[in-house]
């Protein structure tokens, strides 16, 4: 019976894909079948596992980081950061492009999402880049690539998911993401400077402009320092830092940026009331968006964790590792194959879903080849980050196409050089673990 089920299950899953079923159904059918045929028929265990998966306080950081990013992207923090970066990058060749990339990196240190970063910076910078004479393909490609920094520079939702699935320390994963994130940023900036060497050379630095931009953005700049500094120093856990991020976002937008506090000092309660009303509307809207995102992500997470529990109990990863090591004896060959596999997966699945589905299987294999669990998580995330730029399911491509009103071909042509650069960085990350681990060890 179980042998027949073993053959029938993949066929059923393929049939369900053809019959256009959601990923929740595919994962759910696989999990229920696993418990029914190989777990003694105890299908109620699926819901018990889902309950255990949901009942963890580490998961609280996910909605809170999404909310903090949403508040900041719809407030005025992004614009203030961009103005500051523009003031600093003005005399450098390709200054506006470099300012965009730096703004993406700083915004990535506040938000944990690629799309939020792309939209927050891109909606302001794309028209400015086109006006400054940058080719459309370059501008859109650069912004799409800059947006992907959102999931590698901490805080990062995919890294939290990886930590939950593999029991790796989320704080260590965040710290390990800094090196590869900055390397990617450096490579993007160098490339942007080279291809725009004769374009957009502004005037020399203006102390007044820099001072004004700095004063204007001082509260916005404080946010990533509080989040990352708190985690790095061990003062906050990732969950606490997510709560602090939401609190900081609300306070910065309400008190500092909308000048609500100054209205109160002056006794102008009506203007403070207006600021508070705007903030209330912003919170209502962003909580709604965050709930939709959680509703899409959570059933996949809960069911994937149930499958994870089953496979770990049945020692499935160990059996696969044993089988695999019989065929692949070199670590480099393993890295090559696993990265090629993840690049293909990234074309069809978003980073979060891919991590949830593959984390029970791939990390144990990586550990059997002597890889560090945290290092593998970073490599996996950098790899799946490329998936945001590859058709047909590259989320940044779809978002950029819709938001900036460009055709799919222009967007695809734009991201091509950046995909090449990211693959080079991916190999450096894969073959040189200290790039990820130097801050931990």
């Amino acid at each position, binding site marked *: 019976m179980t042998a027949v089920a073993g053959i029938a299950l993949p066929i059923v899953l393929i049939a369900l894909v*053809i*019959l*256009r*079923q*959601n*990923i*929740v*159904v595919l994962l*759910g*059918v696989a999990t229920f079948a696993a418990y029914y045929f190989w777990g003694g028929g105890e299908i*109620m265990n*699926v*819901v*018990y596992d889902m*309950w255990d998966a*949901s*009942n*963890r*306080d580490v*998961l*609280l950081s996910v*909605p*809170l980081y999404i*909310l903090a990013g949403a508040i900041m*992207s*719809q*407030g*005025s923090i992004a*614009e203030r950061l961009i103005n500051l970066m523009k003031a600093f990058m003005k005399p450098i060749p390709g200054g506006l492009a470099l300012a965009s990339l730096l703004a993406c990196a700083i915004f990535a240190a506040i938000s944990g999402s690629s799309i939020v970063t792309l939209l927050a910076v891109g*909606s302001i910078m794309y028209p400015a880049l086109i006006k400054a004479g940058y080719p459309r393909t370059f501008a859109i490609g650069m912004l799409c690539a800059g947006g992907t920094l959102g999931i590698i520079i901490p805080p990062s939702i995919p890294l939290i998911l990886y930590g939950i699935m593999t029991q790796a320390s989320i704080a260590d994963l965040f710290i390990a993401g800094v090196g590869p994130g900055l390397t990617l940023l450096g490579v993007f900036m160098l490339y942007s400077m080279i291809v725009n060497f004769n374009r957009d050379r502004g005037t020399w630095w203006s102390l007044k402009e820099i001072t004004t931009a700095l004063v204007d953005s001082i509260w916005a700049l404080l946010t990533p320092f509080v989040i990352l500094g708190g985690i790095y120093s061990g003062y*906050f856990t990732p*969950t*606490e830092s997510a*709560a*602090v991020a*939401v*609190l900081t976002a609300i306070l910065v937008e309400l008190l500092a940026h*909308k000048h609500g506090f100054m209205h109160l000092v002056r006794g102008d309660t009506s*203007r403070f009331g207006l600021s508070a009303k705007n903030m209330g509307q912003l919170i209502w*809207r962003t*909580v*709604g*968006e*965050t*709930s*939709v*995102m*959680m*509703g*899409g992500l*959570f059933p996949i997470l809960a069911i994937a964790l149930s499958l994870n529990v089953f496979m770990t109990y049945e020692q499935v990863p160990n059996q696969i590792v044993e089988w695999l090591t019989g065929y692949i004896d070199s670590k480099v060959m393993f890295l090559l194959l696993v990265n090629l596999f993840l690049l293909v997966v990234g074309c*069809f*699945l978003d980073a979060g*879903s891919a991590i949830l589905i593959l984390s029970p299987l791939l990390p144990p294999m990586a550990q059997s080849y002597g890889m560090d669990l945290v290092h593998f998580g970073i490599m996996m995330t950098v790899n799946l980050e490329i998936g945001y730029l590859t058709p047909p*399911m590259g989320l940044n491509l*779809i*978002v950029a*196409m*819709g*938001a900036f009103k460009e055709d799919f071909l222009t967007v695809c042509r734009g991201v091509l050089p950046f995909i090449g650069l990211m693959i080079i960085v991916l190999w450096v990350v894969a073959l040189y673990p200290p790039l990820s681990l130097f801050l931990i060890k």
Partner: protein
Amino acid sequence: MEIAKTFLNRLRIAEQFLCFTAFMVMAGALIYDVLKREITGSGAFGAPQVGVIGMIVVSYIGIGLASAAGTHYRPRFADKVFPPRFDPLLKRIEEFGFAAFCAFLAFVATKVAIESYELKDVAPVLRNPIWPVQMTIALGFGSVAIRHVLYGIFLELKPKPSGEGAELASEQQAQEIIHGHDDYDREKAAARKGHTP
């Protein structure tokens, strides 16, 4: 169809209010915990557990909101296997298939909640009965099942599928961001002129 449309709309509003309340409880409990720890040196008793309950409600009730927004992820690489004339049939199969799965999950989740009620299971720190929280799993998936049955019957009510939905949502988000900055610019300009916009 109008009755179904009104029902779905009201269901969405109810879920949205429930999610917003639970989200506020979750965020409030955690922020209070951190602030209390900073001020008094010790965190608030049971705050993370209250936060987790809020998150569970947001996540499982949010499944219905994700359905209403059309953002549940579906692999699309095999969409061209059947010729386009089968599209209406496949759309109904997609909806009824998802509805059947969610109804089954809601049924099993209800059995689990009943078992917890009979065994008088309580949460470790707060000592509250866990069955009402477990019931949100059943409620969330049950609501999705009803929603997708109605989508299957009235295909016109179905929101844009996930890819297009995500694109539209993102486009809307982009417009909101651009719009938000317009407001900010207007406020700045008004502040320079010395009056409220």
